[in-house]
């Protein structure tokens, strides 16, 4: 039994090792993200996007780098949304598959532990929606091989707080957040700080645990505090459930959220409960710049792209630009080249700051849900 | 002779049921005492009370003049009271040798650190333990089964192994709960002789529960008879067998047994 297992293990590892042959005119790019687990929808969407764009580049003859045409190949692995698996996958991509760059993952917890491996292997990573500041900067020092195309939590929190205070004229706010989720805790913290700085009051600060489905105890407490807005910095399933339950309890306050909201399912599940709510987004869905990508994606995969697809799209754009600028398919050169790049992505202008590796000054879009549609309100930049 | 075990007014109630009702008796130093009575008379309960498995509702149990009521079973065992079980409780997945070796642990006192670093005291004491375990197995005629997993041992030998395991603790009082259950007359006879020999060789006292009257009559110097939790008689084999209450209790049960 044991021998058999070992043999199987050895064979499988060897087979896996022989997988990628070394064709010289192909640039291999890694992707990692969740293909299983509750984040799988987004992972799949990102990987599909990268695949589609690479196919398009290749069909057009490839990318010219340093006077030579290269084809692009993506090697995508599932990390189950688990940091430990992200480490495994990163080691596999950099060590075994010898990719020149990695795109993803879609969560900060999965992106942060990749840093030492990337540094050792000298392979840059472009995160899609990892919004924790510590993905690219730790203790005031920028991590040389970590980049991203999205804005960060402090910014998003400041946008939400500023919008609530200045545009919605909210003076009291309640927060409901997922205490077990890093993204949710981050947004809650920065919303709270910024809203109070503006002069507003947080009248209730309640939490739930990842996996909870009933929020009425917390909402009843929030109802008693009677806030102008309720900030809900978590993902759409919980948003829909908590919004429904809030309305059931007779809470009339305006709901406000972050980039965990946008999804078709929010509308179908949330229905009337999320009507009139606002959320901070990375882009305006109605923006003419994104329509072409939306159509191409739908034509290829038969379904709408999620939010992650747009950011994966821009991550690919950024990578291709970096590759061209580097002049050779080499991780170290690409990392150098990415610093300071300034391109127009479909989610906005992406200017990678050499100090933070973040797309500095990227506007956030505020959307409102009206008649079951996302209606763009304004580009809002926090001061 | 002085009493090694001194029981007075021992009572145990389970909810509304009185399993043992104000029972008193002694086991004399070096004596073999039989505890008999129909099913449900409270015999095993008394064993459980003596060994600390149950806490008595009231009454006293003194071992060598010291109360052992309320002590945990392992402390009572440590003091020198040990037992076997009616439904055998061996360390089933361990070998015959390991069963005995485990129970020998009171003969060693090396510490955790000494064990983990394999220090000299560990080595010498372990050697001594092995020797003792093999000795005991030899005396009881089980050495031939040294490496057999206890569960694979024939039933009669399992009972014998349980006795060996008890002896490994160097007890001064041994409680045997139906040691002859499931044995044929031949084996019972062997066991009878064995119990006598153990008493003499190991210099201990024995309290034995048994249904086999041959065994009881043959080996016990003193007999205590229980019925419905109460002591109804005590004395020598002769005295007890002539006691009308005892005869009635036994006849009664045999009728009930026939009904069932």
């Amino acid at each position, binding site marked *: 039994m044991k021998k058999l297992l070992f043999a199987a293990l050895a064979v499988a590892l060897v087979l896996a090792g022989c997988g990628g042959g070394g064709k010289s005119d192909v640039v291999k790019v890694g992707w990692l993200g969740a293909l299983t687990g509750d984040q799988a929808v987004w992972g799949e969407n990102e990987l599909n996007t990268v695949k589609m764009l690479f196919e398009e580049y290749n069909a057009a003859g490839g990318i010219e780098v340093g006077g030579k045409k290269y084809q692009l190949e993506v090697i995508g692995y599932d990390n189950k949304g688990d940091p430990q698996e992200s480490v495994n996958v990163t080691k596999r991509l950099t060590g075994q598959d010898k990719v020149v760059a990695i795109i993803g993952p879609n969560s900060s917890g999965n992106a942060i532990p990749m840093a030492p491996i990337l540094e050792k292997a000298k392979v840059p990573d472009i995160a899609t929606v990892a919004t924790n500041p510590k993905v690219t900067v730790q203790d005031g020092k920028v991590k040389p091989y970590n980049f991203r195309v999205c804005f960060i939590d402090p910014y998003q929190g400041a946008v939400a707080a500023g919008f609530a205070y200045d545009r919605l004229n909210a003076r009291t706010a309640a927060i409901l957040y997922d205490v077990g989720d890093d993204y949710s805790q981050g947004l809650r913290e920065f919303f709270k700080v910024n809203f109070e700085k503006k002069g507003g009051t947080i009248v209730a600060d309640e*939490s739930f*645990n990842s996996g909870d489905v009933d929020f*009425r105890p*917390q909402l009843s*407490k929030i109802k008693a505090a009677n806030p102008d807005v309720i900030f809900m910095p978590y993902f759409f399933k919980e948003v829909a*459930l908590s919004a429904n339950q809030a309305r059931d309890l007779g809470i009339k306050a305006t709901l406000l959220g972050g980039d965990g909201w946008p999804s078709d399912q929010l509308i179908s599940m949330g229905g009337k409960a999320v009507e009139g709510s606002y959320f901070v987004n990375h882009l305006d869905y109605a923006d003419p710049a994104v329509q072409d990508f939306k159509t191409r994606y739908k034509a290829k995969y038969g379904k709408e792209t999620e939010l992650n697809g747009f950011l994966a799209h821009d991550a690919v754009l950024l990578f291709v630009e970096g590759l061209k600028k580097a002049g050779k398919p080499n991780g170290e050169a690409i990392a150098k080249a990415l610093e300071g790049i300034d391109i127009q992505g479909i989610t906005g202008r992406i200017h990678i700051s050499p100090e933070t590796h973040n797309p500095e000054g990227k506007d956030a879009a505020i959307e409102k849900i009206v008649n079951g549609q996302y209606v763009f309100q304004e580009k809002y930049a926090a001061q | 002779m002085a009493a090694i075990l001194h029981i007075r007014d021992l009572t145990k109630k389970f909810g509304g049921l009185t399993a043992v009702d104000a029972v008193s008796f002694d086991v004399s130093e070096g004596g073999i005492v039989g505890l008999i009575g129909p099913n449900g008379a409270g015999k095993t309960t008394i*064993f459980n009370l003596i060994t600390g498995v149950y806490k008595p509702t009231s009454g006293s149990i003194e071992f060598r003049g010291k109360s052992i009521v309320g002590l945990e079973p392992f402390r009572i065992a440590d003091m020198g009271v040990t037992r076997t079980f*009616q439904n055998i409780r061996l360390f089933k997945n361990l070998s015959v040798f390991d069963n005995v070796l485990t129970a020998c642990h009171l003969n060693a006192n090396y510490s955790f650190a000494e064990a983990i670093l394999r220090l000299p005291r560990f080595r010498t004491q372990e050697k001594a333990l092995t020797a003792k375990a093999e000795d005991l197995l030899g005396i009881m005629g089980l050495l031939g089964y040294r490496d057999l997993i206890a569960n694979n041992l024939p039933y009669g030998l399992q009972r014998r192994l349980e006795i060996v395991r008890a002896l490994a603790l160097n007890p001064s009082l041994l409680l045997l709960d139906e040691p002859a259950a499931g044995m044929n007359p031949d084996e019972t006879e062997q066991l009878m002789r064995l119990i006598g020999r153990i008493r003499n060789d190991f210099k201990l006292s024995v309290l034995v529960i048994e249904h086999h009257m041959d065994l009881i009559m043959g080996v016990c110097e003193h007999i205590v008879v229980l019925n419905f939790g109460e002591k109804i008689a005590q004395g020598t084999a002769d005295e007890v067998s002539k006691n009308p209450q005892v005869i009635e209790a036994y006849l009664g049960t045999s009728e009930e047994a026939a009904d069932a």
Partner: protein
Amino acid sequence: MVQFLQQLINGLSIGSVYALMAVGYSLVYSIMNFSNFAHGGVIMLGAYFGFFSLTLLKLPFAAAFLLASVGTFFVAIIVERVAYKPLRERRAPFLYFIISAMGASILLENLVIATIGPTFRTYPEVFSKALIELGPLAVGRLDLIIFLISAVSLTLLILFIDKTKLGKAIQAASYNVKACALMGVNTDRVILTVFGLGGFLAGIAGVFFGMKYTVYPQIGNITTKSFIAAVFGGLGSLPGAVLGSVLLGVIETFVAGYLSSQFRDLIAFVILIAVLVLRPTGIMGKVTEDKA
């Protein structure tokens, strides 16, 4: 006062969901003396069965409800046959049952992810979501219906166990499976019945859960709570499971509502452990003194 009553309603409504799940655990525990962690997976399948009966087959609610319960009835029996029966025959210790149950739970959850997909699905609106408002208090209609159907099915279950011959065999087996086998009770059939019943209840729980909170492959995880509730009430006791669930629901709600939502589960666990220290077999668990 209003908030107190509203929180009490919230707690009871959460508790009644736990109860439907916990009873299935307790039922199996009473016979097999192990915690059937695959129960969560069966509940999850029940939610999916109900969902597809309503959306794909377009069945009326009652039929969908029945189909889901019958479906999980068979799933539970299959799980028993595949994952537990061989262990039973080998008289494996309870650890093995639990591990096998975990395997089944991992298998069921990921099978659904692989075949149906990881996305959440919303039940079509069967009952109007309108609220029953008692002054400032709000009671969900769905909550009320769930509460009533749970009460009816639990009563039927208790009647079944008390009044029928098979039920009595189950009761007897819950005291001593071996003795029952010796006395000619077909324990295999009793065990199958218990799993089937547990599965049937899982179907009911799954459909209600789905209606209330949507359907997704990780529903099974929430059953950790109902497992705790079952332990709280005393494993193996059906009324205990119900009581434990309601208490857990109410305690959680009040802790979140009045003390701290951040530490809600922590405080709930502390209370659980305190109960276990004071009553080592839960509130209504069968107390057995280890017989020598």
